[in-house]
């Protein structure tokens, strides 16, 4: 699988370019460094979730628990991030660990019980939300240390840390997917799970890996969100999983599995960000923005299926 493996992605890139061009013609503030920085910062949380769930969706699965993992890990990290309690590394590590464990839990149940990922992660979504409320006693966890809060608001060499993490995670994920054995196995399982098993692939291990990666990245997103809003919110992240899945689908990944790329997801994430930002700049209310977004999701998939038909 190459980075850009079909015409569809060029098509998506062109659509993305045209939309950027139109918005920048209408509103001159769009194409400024500060506005573009805002866009990328805004989409970075969604991007982390979308990159993680791309792996899952290519295996033919789904992860609905992402938003709840964001809440659990955000609350966990925040509880350990009060000033003068622990070094900042502790809340970060524990938050990531919590995400990893929840993801691994999904993977474990899915592989051992053979229950559909949709059902299992729906259950985890509810469990996770409850867990976040219990941990935080139902209240936002505030009063966090400056060094923790710096993660979500600080910069390195003038570039926001969020953006740096975004770029780093993208690079790692796209290398995993396109260059490693794990990546190849992910495509193989989504393409034909039975044949993958008969080819000697350890299906359970690969699935455990993808749900763990998805959980880990959701954990990272949860920590960064808590840092950015300087509180651990037990109600944070509700519905985030659907935004992430939308970005993946717009990016051309098939929900049936076996087909998709990280670049596609990246473009999907940016497209959502640019359109939201453009509509903001044009003073379109958020009610209409939701309608526009829905049309784009359906439109992208319709284009995709037309493209598939013309290929075969």
């Amino acid at each position, binding site marked *: 699988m190459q980075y850009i493996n079909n015409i569809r992605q060029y098509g998506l890139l062109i659509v993305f370019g045209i939309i950027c061009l139109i918005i920048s013609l209408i509103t001159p503030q769009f194409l400024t460094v500060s506005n573009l920085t805002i866009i990328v910062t805004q989409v970075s949380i969604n991007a982390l979730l979308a990159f993680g769930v791309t792996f899952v969706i290519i295996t033919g699965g789904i992860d609905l628990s992402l938003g709840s993992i964001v809440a659990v890990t955000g609350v966990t990290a925040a509880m350990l991030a009060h000033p003068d309690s622990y070094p900042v590394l502790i809340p970060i590590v524990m938050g990531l660990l919590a995400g990893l464990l929840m993801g691994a839990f999904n993977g474990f149940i899915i592989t051992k019980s053979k229950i559909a990922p949709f059902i299992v992660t729906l259950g985890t979504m509810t469990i996770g939300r409850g867990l976040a409320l219990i941990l935080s006693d139902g209240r936002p966890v505030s009063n966090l240390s400056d060094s923790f809060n710096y993660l979500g608001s600080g910069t390195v060499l003038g570039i926001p840390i969020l953006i740096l993490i975004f770029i780093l995670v993208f690079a790692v994920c796209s290398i995993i997917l396109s*260059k490693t054995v794990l990546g*190849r196995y992910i*495509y193989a399982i989504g*393409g034909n799970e039975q*044949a*993958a098993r*008969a*080819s000697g*692939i350890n299906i359970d291990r690969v699935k455990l890996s993808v749900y763990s990666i998805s959980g880990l990245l959701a954990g990272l997103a949860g920590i960064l969100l808590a840092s950015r809003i300087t509180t651990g919110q037990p109600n944070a992240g509700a519905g985030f999983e659907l935004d992430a899945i939308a970005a993946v689908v717009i990016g051309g990944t098939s929900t049936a599995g076996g087909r998709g790329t990280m670049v596609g997801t990246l473009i999907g994430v940016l497209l959502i960000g640019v359109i939201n930002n453009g509509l903001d700049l044009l003073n379109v209310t958020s009610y209409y923005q939701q309608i526009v977004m829905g049309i784009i999701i359906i439109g992208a998939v319709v284009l995709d299926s037309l493209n598939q038909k013309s290929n075969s």
Partner: protein
Amino acid sequence: MPESDQKIIHVKDLNKSFSGIKALDNIQFDLYPGEVHALMGENGAGKSTFMKILMGLILPDSGSINFNGEFIENMDVHKMLKKGISMIHQEILMVPELTIAQNIFLGREFKQRFWLDEQEIDKKSEEILNLIGLNLNVQTKAKQLSIAEMQLIEIAKAISNHAKVIIMDEPTSALSDKECELLFKIINDLKSKGVGIIYISHKLEEIFQIADRITVLRDGQYIATKNTYELDKNSLISLMVGREIENLFSSDSRVPSNAILEVRGISKKGKFENINFEVHAHEVLGIAGLMGAGRTEIARAIFGLDKIDSGEILLKGHKIEIRSPKDAIEKGIAYVSEDRKALGFIPEMSMIENISLSNLKNYSKGGFIQTKKETKVSSQMADDLKIKAAGLNQKVMNLSGGNQQKIVIAKALLTSPALLILDEPTRGIDIGAKHEIYKLINQLANNGLAVIIISSELPEILGMSDRILVLSKGKQTAILNKQEASQEKIMHYAIH
């Protein structure tokens, strides 16, 4: 053949190109009522394209199609169905959760006012099943049926649709001998009722048994139409491939050496019982038996796809336990499944990626795939097996059945197995590719591989095997040497 009758179908000078490449070049074809007209040709000869045109799925570029004395233009699927053309597909399309009766009348349900008249649907379905001598409860759900039963029900559906022409595409590929007999009986009934049948099959024996006339296509071109009695097997093959294939099996004499696989008393409840055999290096062991005799189940158990309840499996003299296909591959066992589409390959992946899939460990470092090495080794293997693809990155789903099968074999061979199990290795592939696969199997066995071949085609089993294990209803009934084996003997033990 009733020359006096009017032709049901008369096709003249049919042409069709896909993006500049001629798929059909001046095709001529006709069909009389009550006739079985076989359409023969290798994969890629244009049979499917031609049938799709007759079904109204695609439009021809030029040429005329006359149906029952009426020229047909702007054909579409509904029009053709209404005119009475039905096709029994290779892949069966039934709704698993609906009953046999509901499936037969799907889309044409009987109604009383607004409500479905299930009783009428059941009654009419029963009549049709009785008509073709199929003894099944019409309220059985489709998911409980065997592939053979579904195929026969597809025929029932065509009859219920008052078909004047039935196209059968490889109808016997999943049928046992007994079911084939039933099918042929049904075909004879249909003939006597004046239905015309276009029959596509790679099995030459049954063509000579059932066809009245044979039309041969090759590389999209019309080659000839002959009465069946004018042809024999060799002359038909040479029409199809354009050259003589001297000896299809060309089996060499070999001396088996040390035992690679020893199977001792393995059983799996409801599948097979107390199976004992050995396969040696430099040897091909054939496994014969009717559908459901347990052939594939034994292969799946040896390969770790299913678990055995009791018994021992020894590889090169050591007792082994195989928990998964991964285990089996690591220990030197490779399996090429009878069900190419389900277990064989990843359709969205390229040839290179499919061939290397079982062996990626050897073409990776620290989890990273060494693409150059992978491409080199895979394409070398593809060359050795004469796999024809438009490019290295062409998706396997776009290749012909024969090439797909070779890719699955290439993947198995790349794991450097000591034992290769081939389950129906030539099902649904053309005679040219068959010949190449036979040559390859011989070569592999000569080079010291232990090979197991499972096949429903007795000539294939007889032609390829050094010894033949015969199964009947899950039990082994004989192990025959090449010298003593014959079709009659195998059948005798298979229905034991």
